[in-house]
């Protein structure tokens, strides 16, 4: 059945602790707890949306036979902002993944929702049967360009990519085709008006996220006979800008479904939601890859001794959202374990606030279109070389006549 055949995330090589970022920015340490995060992935200047996408997808593609690789006939990248106003991130990713030239590729953008929109359209396309045996590779990829102006959002920003291979063997997540609910409208809750900074209206963003969660679930229930938020879904996986908001969203939905006691709410949260927050709490907001990082967290962290139904909520500022569902289970756990996501996250190298500031100063220029630019990965060898057992991966080396340059290293 149509679903997610393979899943992987790449969340960079470095991290800073959230208390260190609070200390460095002089933020109120009493609010660390609200984020429910301990670490945040930090990008190095030799990484960009292309390298993150390729490095997330490479283990998936490498595990395919030549015939399976050739059956990837759709490649979509999803970003908060591309690296060029016309040329897609996908065009570079297609080259460095060595995919077939008989593959269509393009890029989508709708803040943190984009990848889910692409995955849902791909699932419908594949399930239609017009191209039997075909697969679609959707990669959500981003870098963080926020600085102190983002205040408490800065320590929650993430870095990296999630690669999702959709096909007719949904080992990771078999979609409940036709079971979905949407809620979308125009609002300016956050945006990236320039390639060097994001803007955010915190109250409006929190409002839109919670509003969309309730209403997308309501739309799902209107389409799926007998669906019940409390009993239909064994687990919940949600877009996680920070876990405190996920907790509030869960509490809101439970209250709307008549569950009000704090003990009952907390127990349901621990059972159905908490396993999905293990990875987000040490990575940060992975933008449109966030919900798929949370799915990986659930599969790696929950027992999953039998098939279970998962409800997934995807939200992107602006705003568009979707609640959908699928089945995961022991086979997903076995397959995802081969990616070693938890081990790779643990191997990231800790950097301090001054090292973070030095990287951020260069990272803020990452998305700015310029004709020529040099990035020497050797300058980051002191960090890269400390990552235990690091395999050769794609690194960003600069720009020549607007053409981005990469090397394996």
């Amino acid at each position, binding site marked *: 059945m149509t679903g997610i055949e393979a899943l992987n995330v790449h969340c960079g090589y470095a991290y800073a602790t959230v208390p260190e970022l609070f200390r460095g920015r002089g933020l109120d340490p009493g609010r660390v707890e609200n984020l429910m995060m301990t670490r945040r992935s930090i990008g190095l200047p030799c990484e960009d949306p292309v390298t993150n996408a390729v490095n997330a997808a490479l283990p998936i593609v490498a595990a395919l036979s030549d015939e399976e690789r050739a059956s990837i006939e759709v490649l979509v990248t999803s970003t908060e902002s591309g690296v060029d106003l016309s040329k897609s991130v996908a065009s570079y990713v297609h080259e460095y993944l060595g995919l077939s030239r008989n593959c269509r590729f393009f890029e989508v953008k709708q803040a943190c929702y984009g990848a889910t929109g692409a995955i849902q359209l791909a699932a419908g396309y594949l399930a239609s049967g017009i191209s039997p045996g075909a697969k679609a590779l959707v990669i959500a990829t981003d870098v963080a360009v926020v600085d102190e102006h983002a205040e408490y959002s800065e320590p929650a920003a993430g870095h990296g990519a999630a690669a999702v291979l959709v096909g007719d063997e949904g080992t990771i997540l078999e979609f409940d085709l036709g079971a979905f609910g949407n809620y979308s409208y125009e609002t300016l809750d956050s945006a990236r008006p320039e390639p060097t900074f994001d803007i955010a209206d*915190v109250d409006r963003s*929190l409002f839109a996220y919670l*509003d969309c969660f309730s209403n997308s679930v309501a739309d799902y229930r209107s389409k799926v006979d007998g669906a019940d938020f409390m009993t239909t879904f064994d687990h919940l996986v949600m877009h996680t800008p920070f876990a*405190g908001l996920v907790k*509030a969203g869960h509490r809101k939905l439970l209250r709307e479904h008549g569950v009000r006691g704090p003990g009952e709410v907390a127990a349901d949260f621990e059972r159905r939601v908490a396993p999905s927050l293990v990875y987000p709490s040490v990575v940060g907001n992975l933008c449109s890859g966030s919900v798929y990082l949370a799915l990986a967290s659930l599969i790696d962290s929950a027992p999953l001794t039998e098939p279970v139904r998962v409800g997934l909520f995807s939200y992107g500022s602006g705003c568009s959202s979707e609640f959908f569902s699928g089945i995961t289970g022991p086979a997903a756990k076995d397959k995802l374990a081969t990616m070693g996501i938890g081990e790779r996250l643990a191997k990231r190298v800790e950097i301090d606030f001054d090292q973070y500031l030095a990287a951020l100063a260069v990272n803020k220029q990452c998305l700015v279109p310029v004709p020529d630019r040099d990035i020497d990965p050797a300058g980051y060898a002191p960090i890269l070389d400390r990552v235990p057992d690091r395999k050769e991966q794609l690194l960003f080396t600069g720009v020549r006549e607007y053409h981005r340059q990469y090397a394996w290293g």
Partner: protein
Amino acid sequence: MTSTQSTHSEVFTVVREVVSDILPEVTDIPGHKHLKDLGADSVDRVEIILALMDHFGVQAPMSDFSAVPDVDRLVAFLAERSTR
């Protein structure tokens, strides 16, 4: 008791219920305090406002609520705009 006073009283009862759901540790809700003073962080405040808007059928931008200085003025704001 006038109908307006009655409405304010009913609204305050609902505000107290919603705040208790979201901030179970809060037992006293003085009218002159802001939700922040009761220990509500930004996520809690938005959740409280959303629950109250839903209960009273109020349609208003979040920025209108940001300007409300305390619980008494929040009650009055909701009572004026309630459609239920």
